[in-house]
């Protein structure tokens, strides 16, 4: 961009006085002395008010100083004189966006052809679907960019919220609206409200999928395994193909000491969605509790094929240590316990 601006200077008929200020401004900018650069460029705009490059350089200095409010006017003036100034649209769009003027920023950023910035501006202007297109296009080029990931997430959340707002507004007494309110309350930690809404959802539509599951999670999270088991069982009845429901039902049963039920459900979960490490770990624990240490060991080894340093892996090593001690394999138990301690000291 700098080379292009310089060529604009050269293309323009300038006096010696102007030239001196331009050079002083550029030197100050190169030296990082933005205040001096601003002072010199401002003098240039006074001496040569129709010189677009003078305005754009003043705007760029303000922009570089992150004084976006001050950057807007000279950048606008520059583009007024020369609408094709390279880089000026992006700077102006960004400066406007940085101050919250998303709608004003959009035409500038459209001209700048910056998907990422345009996506953010569209999102902030409430044009969520268009924003998502631009942001996802940008994300394809920079898949790990934290800002982009954040804004893509925001856009999806906004779309989902919009849909839910419509749902609650248009069908406030529907089972789905109650389910949504329940899930939202649960996420906010408001157990009482969550329970009330989810129960209302089920009263309105007893075959509603997901509501029993959400209730089960609520009870599981507060240690009420009896009610959790009841809800997960109901969910599993509605969704016999749900590995998650089978897993949670097994987990609740295991916590109630119902080893046979736990084994049945965890095995079922492992058939429905084979090889999930969480399922394998719980299945191994229930299997060991049932006395089948050899199978439990095999299952734990399967967990460790997928998990190396996670807390899940730590737990698997801990279980293995217990099993080996029971089997009288002290060196193996020590090895597992050492690995468990290593993971414990340095959790991932």
């Amino acid at each position, binding site marked *: 961009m700098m080379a292009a601006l310089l060529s604009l200077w050269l293309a323009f008929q300038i006096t010696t006085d102007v030239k001196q200020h331009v050079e002083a401004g550029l030197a100050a900018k190169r030296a990082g002395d933005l205040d001096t650069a601003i002072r010199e460029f401002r003098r240039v705009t006074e001496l040569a008010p129709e010189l677009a490059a003078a305005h754009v350089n003043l705007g760029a200095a303000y922009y570089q100083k992150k004084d976006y409010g001050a950057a807007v006017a000279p950048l606008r003036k520059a583009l007024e004189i020369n609408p094709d100034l390279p880089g000026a649209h992006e700077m102006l769009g960004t400066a406007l966006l940085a101050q919250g003027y998303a709608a004003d920023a959009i035409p500038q950023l459209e001209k700048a052809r910056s998907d990422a910035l345009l996506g953010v501006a569209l999102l902030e202007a409430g044009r969520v679907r268009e924003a998502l297109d631009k942001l996802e296009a940008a994300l394809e080029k920079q898949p790990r960019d934290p800002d982009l990931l954040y804004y893509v997430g925001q856009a999806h959340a906004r779309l989902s919220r919009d849909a839910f707002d419509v749902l609650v507004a248009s069908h406030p007494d529907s089972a789905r609206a109650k389910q949504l309110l329940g899930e939202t309350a649960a996420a906010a930690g*408001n*157990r009482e409200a969550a329970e009330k809404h989810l129960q209302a959802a089920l009263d309105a539509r007893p075959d509603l999928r997901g509501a029993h599951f959400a209730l089960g999670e609520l009870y599981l*999270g507060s240690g009420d*395994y009896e009610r959790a088991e009841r809800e997960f069982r109901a969910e599993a009845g509605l969704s016999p193909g749900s590995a998650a429901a089978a897993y949670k039902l097994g987990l609740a049963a295991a*916590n*109630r*000491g119902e080893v046979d039920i736990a084994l049945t459900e965890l095995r079922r979960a492992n058939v429905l969605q084979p090889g999930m490490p969480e399922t394998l770990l719980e299945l191994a*624990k229930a299997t060991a509790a049932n006395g089948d240490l050899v199978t439990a060991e095999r299952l734990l080894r399967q967990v460790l094929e997928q998990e190396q340093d996670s807390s899940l892996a730590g737990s698997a090593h*801990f279980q293995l240590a217990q099993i080996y001690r029971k089997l009288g394999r002290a060196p193996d138990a020590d090895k597992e316990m050492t690995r468990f301690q290593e993971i414990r000291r340095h959790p991932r």
Partner: protein
Amino acid sequence: MLSFAAQSPQLQLVQPAGFDFKHRNSPTTQKYLLETMGGGVALLDYNNDGLLDIFLVNGGKLDDPVKGPVDFHRRESVFWNRLYRQNRDGTFTDVTASAGLSDAGNNYGMGVAVGDYDNDGFPDLYVTNYGHNTLYHNNGDGTFTEVTAQAGVAAGGWSASAGFFDYDNDGRLDLFVTRYLDWDIHRNILCGTPFHSYCRPDKFAGVTNALFHNEGDGRFRDVSVTAGIGGVKGKSLGVAFNDYDGDGFADIFVANDGMEQFLFRNKGDGTFQECALDAGVALSEDGKPFAGMGVAFADYDNDGRPDILVTNLALEKYAVYRNEGGGRFQYASLTTGLAGLTAGSSGWGVGLYDFRNNGRKDVFAAQGHVLDNVEKIHSGLRYLEPPAMFQNREGKFTKGDLGNPPAVAGRGAAFGDLNNDGYVDVVMSVLGGHPIVFANRGAANHWLTLKLIGVHSNRDGAGAKVKVGNQWAYATTSGSYLSASDSRLHFGLGPESEAAVEIVWPSGRKQLLEHAAADRILTVREPE
């Protein structure tokens, strides 16, 4: 005093006349952690009249905030610890002042241990504090003398549970003192957003526990380091003793808050080895630390091997470790059903006692969360909780009926037969409130209670292992949380009207009583 309706719960709330203690913890806006941890309760027969008396540890006054040199105002009578003598008619009389127990020093009270450390036949009291601990010698005439300095057992810092036991079987009771955290009231920190709440223990460093060897002349020697106790730092709250490996020497289980638990194996040479991880009692089933608070160290499944039950915070599930022999335990909270019964509760004082005299030890737990605003943080949890009783049905626990006890901040719990009817009663301390007495309504089952008198062993017989039928019990006043229980050993006999009693004394002497008649309190003296 005690009469019950036929359908009343096994343990029923009663209010004995004259028993008017109120615990003062002085909650402040500073949320000093101290405020939420006390206090202990002891059941002891201090005057040897055959009736259990009750001693309660009070907290103290806390200014809000504490400024300058701290004054806990223990001179004011509302902040005294209290001793209540039981009268023949089941009422109680406050004898604190006449017994010489009104001076608690400038300390904030926590727990109590009971043991006859000088073998004179009268139980002595050791009170733990934030500050210095206090040893009261029982003079045998209804009065006590404070002998802390002479005995050398003041410790210091923040002590919690303590217990007397004879770790070297020399016939004299030694003393183990747990200490909680490296915490100073003058360096308090505020925790919790947006609501201030009591800090988690991980905000503070751990400290060592203390072991005092009884030198036999009224003095104790701090052997913490040489015995291997001082080699590990804990965040210790509960302590209990039993001989888990059957080698004839008392081992120590220490409940730690928010870290691994400790099991100190007595090596029989005056030293200990911490081996909780190897023994399988350090962590939860998933290898996770938990907030260990109270502990019961007793044989719940009648296999002759003492098991361990540790209370902890809600969502952690009380931890049951079944002793499988060979120095190994198996986490059994799930298989015993106790996990499902306790996952939503926070437990403190705890005991494994046969409340129904059917030959199986049940569980009683004092409950209540540590955070007085926990509902704001987790709406599924509760600060105040009723205590719980879980009945032992062949090694599986089910919820027992306590009637409708109030939800309180339960803390300490002491167990013993208050009215000598052969059924174990409970006294539970309540943080900032009145203690609760649960009287056992009894049943038709037979029972046998043994009062041991050691001769070669310590006079309390602490550490004796007693077998009655297929049941084993270990003589100790320790366990639970901050509390001390009846020193007598209690056995439910079900329909049996007599029992064979085998006693292995700490001295190694064995004693057999072949046909001990049921339904009596039997005093057994160690053979010469």
